[in-house]
């Protein structure tokens, strides 16, 4: 099973989603709701899901908002470099 899953994964230039294995309870709510089907269940029950297709993330944050471990920050969206906004901070550019 694990081998087969690996074959599905695509190398991505960025992370998109980071899961804290200590905070994640492996409930798979995020796998269930993800708009883009980015996450896959971990073949080992109770372990954090696999970020199978990071380059297909739409960055909606539904996985973060609906995570029962939201308070513990179990899931974090990591905005890829090319997407980061250009900020004019305070009075300086």
């Amino acid at each position, binding site marked *: 099973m694990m081998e087969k899953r690996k074959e*599905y994964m695509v190398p991505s230039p960025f992370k998109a989603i980071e899961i804290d294995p200590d905070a994640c309870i492996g409930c798979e709510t995020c796998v269930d709701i993800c708009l883009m089907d980015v996450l896959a269940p971990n073949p080992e029950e109770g372990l954090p899901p696999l970020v199978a297709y990071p380059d297909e993330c739409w960055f909606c944050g*539904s996985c973060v908002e609906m995570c029962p471990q939201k308070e513990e920050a179990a899931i974090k969206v990591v905005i890829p470099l090319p997407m980061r906004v250009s*900020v004019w901070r305070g009075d300086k550019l």
Partner: protein
Amino acid sequence: MASRTDIVPVETDVLVIGGGLAGCMAGIKAREHGVRVLIVEKSNTLASGQAGSGIDHVWGYFPPVHEKIGWTLEDLVEDHMEGVAHGFARRDLIRFVAREIHDRMLDLEKFGIQIRYEDSRLPGRFRLVHQFHSVPSSLNIDGYPLKVRLTEEAHKRGVEILNRVMMTDLLSNDGRISGALGVGTRDSKVYLFRAKAVVLSAGGKTGRLGRESTGSVRFNLHLPGSLSADGKAMALRAGLEIMNMEFLGARRYGLANYETAGRPPGNTWQPAAAIVNAVGEVVVAKSAFYDWGDLDEGYQIDAAETRRKWLAKGAITPQGMPSRKDLLERGPYYVDCTRGSEEEIRYVEWALQNEGKCRQLLTYFREEGMDLRKDKVELGLGSREVGNLAASGLVVNSDMETALEGLFAAGDEVGGIPFGASPAAFTMGWHAGDMAGRRAKIRGDFLPVEEGKLTALCRQCADMLEGGQGHSWRETEDTLQNIMDTYCADVKTEALLERGLARLHELRTLPLRAASPHDLARCLEVKSLLDNAEMIIRASLARKESRKKPCSFYRADYPAQDDANWRAFSTIRRENNEFKISKIPLQ
């Protein structure tokens, strides 16, 4: 070829294709007729569709407020026709949406969505803000949890929901709908749905037919990446007429790099946001909370004069808004909320919490130590989209029924409603569901389905899953985007479009390869995109004129606007592998 055992047969009275706002509303309403209702969704109704990460405002006519100040439903319709659509809209449908939305918002309130605010002095404690019309007509709602509440309501009423199935084909028999076909996105099973009435509400739009954004971040789009205009592709395959395909939405301003809904300085960013240039000079001034006057004193507006002033100011796009040329020659420009009062900035933050993807944007701002009170954010052009401004979509009658008896369309699947957006989804979804429920109830047995289409889909899926030599969906989609950006972008000519069509046909002949069920669904999405691209190029070839508003359609070989011949919607359909284009003159 997939064996017949992989086919999952499903029977229902009303089948709803797509579980976004329109689909959920349709399912909920159809169930009132006591029939079996099934919503089939490609993702999960809890977070899917354009409202999956929220909506903070919904335009429409709200009688408790608007009647009181002497602004009529017809005033709103006229504003929309003239200032938003420049005549390129169906007045009957604009009126329907505007009229019905108040009742739908009261329904939403029953489903657990907040639509009234203690800080409002307006009747009903509604909060109305400016968006599209000369008088504030967009109702604020705490819309972040919309899809969760609608899913709960659907379950409560006994509507069945089937997630993770992507629909590919409509089935019919002698001019009447008989069902549909779909494929499981996680198991590659082929689903055969038999139904007595069908609502098509798969979103209509897509942002995936161009690659103007941020390189490797493929789905950095303001529209959900899951939207691949599957509904329009299904309609084409079923021989139905689709209108306005040549009108791509123009690229619009948003935050540079990071695509969300809710664009500054208006909408979700009002009234705190101004636009400033690189030395901090104000280019577009911030707005202010609208002064409704004292409604109890019988305050009335002069609607015609209000509209005149609003049109003179540039209607929904302020005249002072930098042009694309300005952006290149005089940019960069910034969104500047620093002049907003604390109350105004808190209001904008509330709005962002509730509007498409902006809740995640606020989280990102916090992580970056970015504060709207002190810092400015650069403005940029966002991705192009199929659908919105031009409102391409199916041709329907006033009851949302298509030419295929028993097939209704709703929301962004329907053509002729520029900026229909969520109000169109709420109102048309509800009505389409109502009509589908009635129809299913009086229709007797299920009709025969088209076996040929089922066999073809099974073979297509098997070929892609087993096709070692084919191309991945990623490289095929990239190639398609290149074709659209090169041959069918801002400047069009017959020579470019013909070449684009030829390259598109070459691409179509190349086999696709899927390494997993997930991949197979993406390949099927690419098939939808290919069909949409062909409609767009062909409709662009047919329109032999240029038309700046509402849709920035430019043919270098026909640079003049030709009202005598082209003040009309175009329609396209495919019959026996031949495309047919016709016109519907505007009223």
